[in-house]
């Protein structure tokens, strides 16, 4: 594939293009893009040293794994000396003096950041419409209503749109309830959320600490594996970072599966879905069945509780995680007559409506008198959801689901928060369980819009998960559709 990491690395190695020319090409395209998928683009001068060093390594014949690859970075990762806003007004002037663990690993492996991707404010949203810097437009158009601007999904909407339109080779996103997989699906690209604890959260602006996980948005499953190789490392500075054994996820990704694979399809996920969505699952089954893969129906007992559980736990954690944005030490401060006024004004004016809504929900469910009924209860249900997945994984290797219940919708169409939250109905349970999930594009809707399917694997089985995803990617052949 033309824009794949390995293809570009070959071109750089063969001197068909220089690292600098490559950067120029992507930057030029990004600058002329109308999708609003970057909050900030880095001019060549900002990266000239890295570009030159990268070029030298190619010339010396020892390039690093991601050498010279232009990446987009969700504006939730703190990047040293580069403004990091979480797409919020309250951080719109914030320049961190440190580099997040994950982006540092990407830099260490030679990649070059082209800019900071737009996203939902503090990663709260499923359409990228809550950003202080305005909505991101999906590069795809509804062929029946081509004048409509569509959402790219969210919260990593800018990261997904940028990869889809080719303004970066790959991008980094974060996924709390579907924020990588859902926009990947709506933009027709690959999005991987690794197992919770795989990639350090150190230096990522926190939304919901027990759910947040960094992951790549890419043009191919192999690219996702290559990036995972760089970012999936144990970090002593993140207590929740797992110290399991890491593998080489890219090597052998296209090898033939040597054992019989059983994939479960949750029948309860497919009640009430549209024909477009259902056919993604049917097509996948058809494409894979010849590879000695067995499909079985499975049924969750907890699906209907997942969204409510998520919308108690994530806001609860967020209400506390976002307390530090008070206008006192950094970020935008609004004046006031008293300390309380400064807090009130800074936070009222600094946060958008969705963020405010979730802080209020979170504060409520943690309040004295409500804690047991909401927060504690939700923690118990979360445990049941985990158990539910393990029960199913006793019998199957993977779970296959649609990534989203619908295709990309028009900007401004979903005004009601609940209908917006329902976009994450297939991705949220995985997040609550902490399991890895990958969305790959599987086909087009009747409106000519991309749709995705999600493979869910067991804890830390990313290697297997990427293999099955790569096989499905090859068989479904989305990019040639």
């Amino acid at each position, binding site marked *: 594939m033309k824009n794949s990491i390995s293809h570009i690395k070959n071109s750089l190695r063969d001197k068909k293009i220089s690292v600098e020319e490559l950067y120029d090409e992507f930057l030029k395209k990004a600058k002329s893009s109308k999708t609003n998928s970057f909050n900030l683009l880095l001019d060549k001068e900002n990266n000239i040293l890295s570009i030159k060093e990268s070029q030298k390594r190619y010339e010396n014949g020892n390039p690093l794994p991601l050498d010279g690859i232009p990446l987009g970075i969700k504006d939730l*990762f*703190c990047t040293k000396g580069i403004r*990091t806003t*979480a797409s919020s007004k309250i*951080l719109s002037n*914030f320049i*961190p*003096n*440190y580099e*997040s663990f994950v982006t540092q690993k990407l830099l260490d492996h030679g990649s070059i950041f082209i800019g900071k991707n737009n996203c939902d404010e503090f990663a709260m949203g499923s359409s990228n419409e809550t950003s202080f810097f305005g909505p991101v437009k999906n590069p795809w158009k509804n062929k029946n209503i081509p004048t409509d601007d569509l959402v790219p999904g969210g919260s990593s909407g800018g990261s997904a749109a940028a990869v889809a339109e080719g303004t970066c080779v790959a991008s980094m996103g974060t996924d709390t309830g579907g924020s990588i997989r859902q926009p990947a699906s709506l933009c027709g690209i690959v999005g991987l959320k690794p197992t919770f604890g795989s990639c350090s*959260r*150190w*230096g*990522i*602006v*926190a939304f*919901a*600490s*027990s759910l947040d996980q960094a992951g790549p948005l890419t043009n191919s499953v192999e690219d996702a594996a290559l990036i995972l190789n760089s970012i999936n490392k144990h970090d*002593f*500075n*993140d*207590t*929740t970072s797992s110290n399991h054994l890491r593998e080489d996820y890219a090597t052998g990704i296209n090898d033939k599966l040597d054992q019989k694979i059983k994939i479960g399809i949750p029948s309860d996920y497919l009640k009430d879905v549209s024909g477009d969505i259902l056919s993604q699952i049917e097509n996948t089954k058809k494409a894979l069945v010849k590879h000695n893969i067995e499909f079985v129906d499975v049924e969750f007992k907890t699906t209907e509780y997942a969204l409510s559980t998520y919308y108690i736990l994530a806001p*609860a*954690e967020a*209400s*506390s995680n*976002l*307390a*530090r*944005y*008070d206008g*006192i*030490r*950094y970020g935008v401060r609004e004046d006031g007559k008293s*300390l309380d006024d400064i*807090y009130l004004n800074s936070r009222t004016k600094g946060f958008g409506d969705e963020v405010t809504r979730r802080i209020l929900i979170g*504060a409520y469910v*943690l*309040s*004295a008198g409500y*804690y047991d009924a909401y*927060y504690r209860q939700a923690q118990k249900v979360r445990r049941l959801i985990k158990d539910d997945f393990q029960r199913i994984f006793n019998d199957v290797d993977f779970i296959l689901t649609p990534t989203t219940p619908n295709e990309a919708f028009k900007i401004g169409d979903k005004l009601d928060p609940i209908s917006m939250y329902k976009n994450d109905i297939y991705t949220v349970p995985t997040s609550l369980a902490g399991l890895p999930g990958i969305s790959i594009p599987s086909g087009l809707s009747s409106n000519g819009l991309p749709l995705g399917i999600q493979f869910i694997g067991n804890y830390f089985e990313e290697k297997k998960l990427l293999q099955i995803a790569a096989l499905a990617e090859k068989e479904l052949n989305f990019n040639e559709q």
Partner: protein
Amino acid sequence: MSNNWEMVIGLEVHAQLNTSSKLFSSSPNQFGSEPNENVNFIDSGMPGMLPVINFACIEMAIKTGIALNFNINKYSVFERKNYFYPDLPQGYQISQFEFPILTEGFINIDNEGNQKKIRIERAHLEQDAGKSIHDIDPKFSFIDLNRVGTPLLEIVSYPDLSSAEEVVSYMSSLRQVLMYIDVCDGNMQEGSLRADVNLSVRKKGGELGTRCEIKNLNSFKFIRQAIEYEFKRQIDVIESGGKIEQNTMLFDTSTGETRAMRSKEFSHDYRYFPDPDLLPVNLTQDQIDKVKTSVGELPQAKLDKFIKDYNVDKDIAKIITTEKQNAILFEKMISETDVKPKFIAAWLVGDIFAFIKENNLELSSLNEKTKDITDLLKLVSEDVISNKAGKEILPKVLNGQGKPSDIVKELGLEQVSDSSELEKIIDETLIGEEENILKFQGGSDRVLGYFVGKCLKATKGKGNPKLINKILLERLKK
């Protein structure tokens, strides 16, 4: 009036752990640095920063647990206590709430000679907040974040205390133990140890009253004053027909009065919940056992040993065991000499402590001089020099001006213990004293003192008084 009333007191003591770094960050944990010098990205609550538990704090909690007879919980959880204040950069304090590391301990205190057992409900680890300074500038407040994240162990007693004296005794016993096991420097002035006092009053033996909490008392004097003031205040309110409201009080050190800071009505809802950035603490028996070996001898055990094994008087033994370094110095001296411990103890709490105090020294400055000291005490105890000469030489020895035996020689202070020489002097002294000799033989003991004094004078103070006494008696009885 207050004769009919009694006070019921529970204490929340905050002990700052003397680790080298903070509870959840690698910033130095030290007092007296320049403002905001010991602050890193975690302490200042920068976006994306994560806490990592400093296991040294867990070990100190375990140590405290062993020393104060606690149940050491193998499972404990750090939670977030949410509130806004400029010296709390994260917008929450990480503390333990539902699952503290220590529960159900106790300590025995000495209450006017009687032992009283004070039960301790729990002790948990938490981070301290920074300091807001409001009195430097009329327009601005200043924030010093050095203290942010400093490890604290909050020790919460049951309401088992019933007087200011008991509270002070409890607090000083706690302080003593924490210093013995080396988890807290005990420096109250610097805030390393401070107390919140929960006090209510009731008619003797009656129902419990409503309590008020007096915050942040950092000296025994203030604790005593605050309790006495608050006790009277509550009685006055009730006796004049009022009701005690559950308030948080501040103690004004300049007026000696307590006043309400906030009432329960305005109390915070802290919205505690388990910190999702931190995994629960799961301890193994192995980890606990390992700490056990480092606890060492506790003050009570040392006191018992000094009294029983070393035959030291109780009051003196108590003084020596007040602080660990005294006890260690004492034990070192005992190990270096065959002089009786009781004799050493008397000198230690007497002239040696006095010297330290007068010269504003640290006791630890004597660590290298213990052998010289015991050599000197040996000379005294074996009557080579007089007690008086010993006291004279001591400061020179403590100042490092030479070996005791050399100093004794140099100053010619060796006692005359040669009987024949003394006999000669005594015989000369008795010449012309027939009248007094008769008085003595007639039963007047007082005359003996007169003779001893005269003889000592004749030896220029160097005669061994015991020997003089003995020879005199032999001569006089003839």
